[in-house]
């Protein structure tokens, strides 16, 4: 198996020796791909197939009816759909960018600086990961209320920023950067900010992309915040709107509408994912990171 010596991402030729890998990878890849195929199929199912028992995986007579119902019910509300969409896009983008900035800055200090509380802080962050989020919902509500964040745009953004998972992943990646690299940068006269921008950030791009995907996921799909902390329709997000559509109108058509809505909700996830994972691949292929 001389495969370890390869440097190219994709070999240009196909060889019989690769067959054994395909034998494992292809079946697994099919399993992995199933949910995506399912979401697309489900959204185009006519009513009788949606309620078929046992449930079917593939659509037999695809129809646009679910989407038509969806757009019909959107015209019922007082607030236009574009408003929710706009809110969601702004909130998601701000959260992704700020999460990355906050987490990478903190990760840099926690990983590469020496100070008294360093170890304790890291441990507390890891431990905080393990606490069930729903159990802090009520205390968190009081905090947000006291900060005067109820019914503001900030309530979408601020609670999402201190994402313990993000810091956890990013700190691990910064730990992998050799100290000699930073020392060399300091020798060349770089200050903390320059080290952060020029050395740390380029070297942890895979982690940044991962955290970006996770942060986007968490924000884009979040219904809870719009539900609990906001009673002003024009500040609520697209995810919340989509979740209300299924319950509006008649219950039978609701199933189809919710299937169509979940496809529409899912597509941005897929786009962000494909875009960012390509970033990860490209940096790994071209940079000389060891």
């Amino acid at each position, binding site marked *: 198996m001389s495969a370890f010596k390869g440097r190219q991402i*994709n070999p240009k030729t196909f060889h019989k020796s690769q067959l054994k890998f395909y034998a494992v990878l292809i079946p697994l890849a099919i399993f992995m791909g*199933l949910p995506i195929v399912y979401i697309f199929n489900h959204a185009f199912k006519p009513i009788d197939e949606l309620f078929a028992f046992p449930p079917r995986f593939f659509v037999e007579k695809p129809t646009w009816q679910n989407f038509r119902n969806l757009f019909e019910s959107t015209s019922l509300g007082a607030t236009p759909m574009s408003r929710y969409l706009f809110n969601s896009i702004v909130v998601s983008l701000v959260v992704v960018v700020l999460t990355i900035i906050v987490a990478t800055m903190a990760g840099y200090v926690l990983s590469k600086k020496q100070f008294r509380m360093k170890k304790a802080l890291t441990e507390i962050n890891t431990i905080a990961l393990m606490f069930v989020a729903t159990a802090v919902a009520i205390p968190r509500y009081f905090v947000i209320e006291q900060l005067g964040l109820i019914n503001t745009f900030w309530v979408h953004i601020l609670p999402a920023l201190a994402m313990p998972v993000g810091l956890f*992943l990013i700190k691990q990646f910064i730990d992998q950067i050799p100290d000699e690299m930073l020392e060399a940068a300091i020798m060349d006269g770089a200050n903390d900010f320059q080290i952060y921008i020029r050395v740390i950030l380029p070297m942890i791009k895979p982690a940044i992309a991962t955290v970006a995907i996770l942060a986007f996921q968490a924000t884009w799909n979040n219904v809870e915040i719009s539900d609990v902390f906001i009673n002003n329709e024009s500040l609520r997000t697209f995810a919340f709107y989509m979740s209300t559509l299924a319950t509006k109108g008649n219950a039978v058509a609701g199933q189809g509408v919710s299937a169509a809505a979940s496809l529409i909700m899912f597509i941005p996830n897929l786009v962000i994912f494909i875009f960012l994972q390509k970033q990860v691949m490209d940096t790994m292929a071209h940079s000389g990171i060891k």
Partner: protein
Amino acid sequence: MIKKIMKNPENKGYLFILPWLIGFVTLTIYPILYSFYLSFFDVTITTEGIQTESVGIENYQSAMTSDIEFINRLIEYVREILISVPLIVIISLLIALLLNQNIRFKGVFRTIFFLPVIISSGPVLDKLIGLDIATLNMVETNALYEMIAGMDNILASSFVYIIDNLIILLWFSGVQILIFNSALQKVDKKIYEAASIDGASSWESFWKITLPSLFPMIMVNIVYTTVMYSVSSLSTIVGHIQSNMFQLETGFGYASSLSWIYFILIVLVLITFTGIIGLFNRKYK
């Protein structure tokens, strides 16, 4: 004091941590501690705010003695996590290794295997499990499966659990594959070349080069998997805590005590895992 610290330009770097620290303390640490405080109370939420009545450790007592559903789920959870976490980590390590081989369409495969990242955290997974396509139906009618499922011991039930949840386990492994993959690419290729010149087989290179250099990431993945698995919305215990939160006779105080018990259990599980890996790691050095 702050002025004195700021005078030294070298210290400015520490300020980088401030935004995170402020957010973390107010929105994560404080609520967690507050829920610990409330777990010793009987909490009722009225329109005028919350009313608390101290009950001492009664919440914990009734959780551990009379809440049979909770205890059963805890036992089930420990069994599941001891099987799932090592399995997810090993599966993702194997997939990451395969994805690092020299094969055609590697890019396409990588994309597909990272897909779970956007599925397992979304609402899609719930629906799929509800539809029963997450289990391997064809296996369940297999004679061998039926025979093993019929046996009544820990090994057999573990086996049944793995088969029943195989696809879910695969879907939980997206981020882990990504982490292993980037770690694998950081291993210096020249070391492998040197090893193969010295006559090491690829099997030996795996155990002597790849695995030791992956240890930090194995640790990361174990922590990540344990956490994600434990606090995911699919967890039956999270569901139990949630349903108790809004029940009149139990309420938020009781739910807080349940989540603290669960939390301590997760920490214990994690200490067990990291302890085992730590021992293993020391043996290598």
